[in-house]
């Protein structure tokens, strides 16, 4: 759930826009470079964007008695690195702001920062960290996607708390309030997103192993590489 249209004061709207813009510009460059260098990536890039489209359209009930939706940004961040998600996430947010009155143009910068920048980078960081400790691929994918989803809404809570500090308890009081609305609601949804991302990654391991190897996500002689070893003998 994004910050609704007009619900950030102009100064905050402009500041978050300015913070997000360089990431999106850099992302567009990274995307064109990837497509030029590896034209065979185009289809998988489309699939990563499509995953974000599906997941951010699904409003799911949560334990807080309210609804929110996942983000779907962890998958693309793991496959193609976070800069490319800055672009794919922005496209999704623009679609929702223009056609669904969900999120908004004045809050686009803030929503891009949380969903298309902070979330993907945090998820990618956790994925890389776990990978370094030789954690099995699907576990790294689960936590990468889980963190990308949850961090998105923690950042949303921070953005709103900065704009609307509590008159009595200040920033922290407002953060607790918005965190209770966004972040707590998001915990079971982030688990769902982790599970769905693992599902898609498992399907990709079956159908597109060579792409995953080229992108550095899977190893040729990895856990599910027995088939190749057999083939090589």
């Amino acid at each position, binding site marked *: *759930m*994004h*910050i*609704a249209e*007009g*619900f950030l*004061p*102009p100064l905050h709207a402009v500041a978050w826009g300015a913070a997000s813009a360089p990431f999106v510009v850099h992302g567009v460059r990274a995307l064109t470079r990837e497509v030029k260098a590896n034209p065979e990536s185009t289809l998988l890039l*489309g*699939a990563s964007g*499509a*995953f*974000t*489209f*599906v*997941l*951010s*359209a699904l*409003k*799911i*009930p949560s*334990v*807080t*008695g*309210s*609804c*929110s939706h996942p983000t779907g940004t962890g998958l693309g961040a793991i496959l193609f690195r976070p800069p490319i998600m800055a672009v794919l996430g922005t496209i999704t947010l623009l*679609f929702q*702001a*223009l*056609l*669904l*009155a969900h999120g*908004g143009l*004045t809050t686009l910068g803030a929503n891009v920062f949380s969903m298309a920048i902070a979330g993907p980078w945090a998820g990618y960081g956790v994925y890389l960290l776990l990978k370094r400790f030789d954690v099995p691929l699907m576990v790294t994918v689960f936590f990468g996607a889980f963190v990308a989803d949850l961090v998105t809404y923690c950042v949303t809570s921070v953005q709103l708390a900065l704009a*609307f*500090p509590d*008159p009595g308890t200040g920033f922290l009081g407002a953060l607790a*309030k*918005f965190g209770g609305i*966004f972040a707590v609601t*998001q915990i*079971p949804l982030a*688990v*769902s997103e982790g*599970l*769905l991302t693992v*599902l898609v990654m*498992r399907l990709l*391991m*079956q159908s*597109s*192993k*060579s792409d995953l190897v080229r992108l550095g996500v899977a190893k*040729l002689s990895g856990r599910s*590489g027995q*088939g*190749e070893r*057999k*083939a090589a003998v």
Partner: protein
Amino acid sequence: MGMSRNTKINGLLLLLVAALAVLPIALGMGEGKEEPFTGADAQAETAITELKPDYEPWFSPLYEPPSGEVESALFALQAALGAGVLAYYFGVRKGRRQGAALAAAAGAPDTAGASDTAAAES
């Protein structure tokens, strides 16, 4: 026998996601709320008006779906577009794999798609 282990694990993942979505409703976690299971964004708007009663949204959406029905139709369209592209992707990959397998069976064992085919068998 019937489903492969792979398919079973995938089915289990989907089942878990469905359970996570249904449980909050089944356990009545929206009870006691004036409007149960509304969007978190609407609740945030309420929180903002509580924190700063004089705040007025200074911009409104250029286009707003005329009703809740139209809005949910557009959300469904968004999900359908994404699901369509994903299905196309996996369809193309499966076709390539089958094509490579057919070519291999026809007597060309070292085809380019062989590594994917082998991975799928493991």
